[in-house]
């Protein structure tokens, strides 16, 4: 058992209001520089929709992530045998047209235009070339199902639905959508890291944050193709790739990443989990419909004495083990089985989990009451406006049982709380709902607490991995007295 600590993230989609505050917070801090204007390390997509970059989920086209070939796990297009001959031209790399060309306006024209009969206008100019452009796409061009016939209907996840179901989804009275905020997943089995020819990309050992060494990046661009989530971006100006760094300077000082901190809907949870790194390859090689379980299997119980002993042996400090025991991510993803990974069939084991949205499901009612009184308490889930099949394609590699379980449990918690607070649901019904959803009253209360009432400190439990304390937490500081001193990366040897 090779126990490691990893920061894991939960996005509760039922609470996301699609306000894009997270995107703007991130943009203002990290990607307002030349060459990064088109990058959104954090973006919020409308689903159904084609996303950013356009149809990023279509791996027939972009060929990112891993695949099983003859029972063996291998990179879909960016392994050694493929990337070396393709190094001069990467055949599956998206170009700027697949994102959008960033632009600004010539505002000064509004003041300097000569007097005339017409109002002066500020022309759109490209932020790459500085020349006037016709804007054809932009960030969240298809927000809230805008341009559905072009965007939403071409969502790759709709492919398996029957034409009738698809048509029903886009009928104006039944139209339903939800938001999907996306950042780098900081995967356990990152294909970007595995495919970097320069070895510039790496996972930080102490918390699993995936980073890209700007000094070592040589612009071979294979990470851009390799990441199936398209969360590594190429900076066309510096000739280096860049990606979400999970605001590690903030994490190291105990603060939440900017997108978490600014989240208006409080949908974001952060905490570390302990996992067994020895089992990654074996678990990632399971058949598609077992992948959700395989990923949960990797996550270890931080209260198990055996796990704690193995973690200590691996140099994981007690503070980090404590924080894993309080981790909201562990509870949502493993204990309650409410949160599911996005596109687990890419086999990277993303460490960002989503609680699938119940909202469009329950809004199905036409009578105006909260729900219909039928024998089957969970009938609404099956009649959902967003079909379970669609959600399963997103969150469980097509395994509908996993999505159904998460939705039923959420609905049971709602019925339970409605019975407690409003009282129009009988105790018998509420208890039956919990029983059928495999949820105890205590668990229901805990889910309710963490979903609806939790404070910032409960939602974001940053493991104490502060770099400035890294040595003190693990080593005797006196051991380092008289060694390298301050400000030197390598020891200051005489004459060197």
């Amino acid at each position, binding site marked *: 058992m090779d126990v490691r600590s990893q920061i894991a993230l939960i996005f509760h989609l039922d609470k996301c209001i699609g306000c894009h505050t997270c995107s703007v917070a991130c943009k203002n801090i990290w990607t307002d520089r030349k060459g990064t204007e088109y990058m959104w390390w954090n973006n919020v997509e409308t689903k159904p929709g084609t996303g950013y970059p356009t149809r990023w989920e279509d791996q027939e086209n972009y060929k990112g992530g891993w695949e099983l070939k003859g029972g063996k796990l291998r990179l879909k297009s960016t392994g050694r045998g493929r990337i070396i001959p393709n190094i001069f031209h990467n055949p599956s790399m998206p170009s700027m047209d697949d994102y959008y060309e960033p632009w600004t306006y010539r505002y000064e024209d509004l003041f300097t235009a000569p007097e005339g009969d017409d109002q002066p206008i500020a022309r759109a100019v490209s932020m790459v070339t500085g020349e006037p452009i016709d804007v054809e796409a932009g960030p969240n061009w298809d927000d809230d199902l805008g341009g559905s016939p072009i965007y939403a209907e071409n969502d790759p996840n709709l492919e398996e639905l029957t034409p009738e179901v698809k048509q029903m989804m886009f009928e104006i009275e039944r139209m339903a959508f939800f938001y999907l905020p996306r950042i780098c997943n900081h995967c356990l089995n990152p294909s970007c890291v595995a495919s970097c020819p320069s070895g510039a990309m*790496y*996972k930080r050992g102490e918390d699993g944050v995936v980073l890209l060494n700007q*000094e070592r990046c040589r612009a071979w661009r294979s990470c851009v193709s390799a990441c199936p989530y398209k969360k590594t971006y190429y900076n066309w100006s510096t000739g280096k790739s860049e990606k979400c760094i999970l605001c590690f300077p903030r994490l190291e000082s105990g603060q939440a990443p900017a997108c978490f901190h600014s989240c208006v809907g409080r949908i974001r949870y952060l905490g570390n989990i302990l996992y067994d790194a020895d089992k990654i390859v074996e678990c990632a090689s399971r058949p598609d419909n077992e992948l959700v379980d395989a990923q949960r299997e990797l996550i270890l119980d931080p209260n198990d004495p055996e796990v704690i002993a193995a973690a200590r042996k691996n140099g994981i400090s007690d503070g980090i083990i404590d924080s894993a025991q309080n981790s909201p991510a562990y509870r949502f993803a493993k204990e309650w089985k409410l949160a599911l990974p996005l596109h687990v069939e890419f086999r990277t084991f993303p460490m960002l989990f989503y609680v699938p949205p119940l909202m469009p499901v329950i809004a199905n009612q036409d009578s105006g009451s909260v729900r219909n009184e039928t024998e089957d308490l969970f009938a609404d889930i099956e009649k959902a406006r967003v079909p379970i099949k669609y959600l399963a394609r997103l969150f469980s590699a097509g395994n509908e049982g996993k999505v159904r379980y998460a939705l039923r449990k959420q609905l049971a918690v709602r019925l339970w709380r409605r019975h407690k607070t409003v009282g129009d649901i009988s105790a018998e019904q509420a208890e039956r709902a919990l029983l059928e959803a495999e949820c105890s009253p205590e668990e229901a209360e805990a889910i309710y607490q963490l979903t609806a009432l939790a404070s910032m400190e409960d939602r974001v439990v940053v493991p104490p991995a502060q770099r400035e304390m890294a040595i003190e937490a693990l080593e005797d500081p006196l051991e380092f007295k008289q060694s390298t001193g301050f400000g030197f990366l390598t020891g200051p040897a005489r004459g060197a």
Partner: protein
Amino acid sequence: MHDELLFAILPYVAMGVFLIMTIQRYRQRTFTYSSLSSQFLENRHHFWGSVPFHYGLLFVLFLHLAGLFIPDVILAWNAAPLRLFITEATGLAMAVITLIGLGNIVLRRMGDTKSRTVTSVSDWIVYALIGVQVISGIAVAVFHGWGSSWFATSLTPWLWSLFKLQPEIGYVTALPWMVKLHIVNAWVLIGFFPFTRLVHVLVVPNPYLWRRTQVVLWNYDRHKVRSKD
């Protein structure tokens, strides 16, 4: 005197600048070592430039290096006329492919506004120098044929005399001006190399072939047990 400057002094200047400046740049400004790819800005024409250019150039370059390091093997191979013809024809074909690639690169850099934006003055100088080099190379192959054989008997001994620090320019002074242009331009290119994007050649991703699949970096040695209890 003129020949001495070009064939006895220029090579040392070029090699000296190359060695000192590439190392200095790597140590002090590692960040600037990048292939500076522009594929992201324009994805289609890029293929027809970059791929033929790189593959053609690599092939021709390896032929040159073979002439330098294993001249006996080349001469023995070329002893049969058919084999000599095959060497010459493949070399020429690959040089033409390189030129087509370079032509596409230049056309793309001029035609596509986004690619033009990221093309620096040093890039244009590099294209010009490589253009002169490839065209003069093709001209030599066409007008002064069988170079794969005479390279081994004239240029190889001259190059080795340079490396031994006893330059014998007699090997090259009698060569036609077209060959001399090819040689001199090569040294100019080598001397200019450290100041251009060409440095990406030096950081080709060779460790990729044998490193472990995943890279995990620790800020402490986790196998040294540190918990006191």
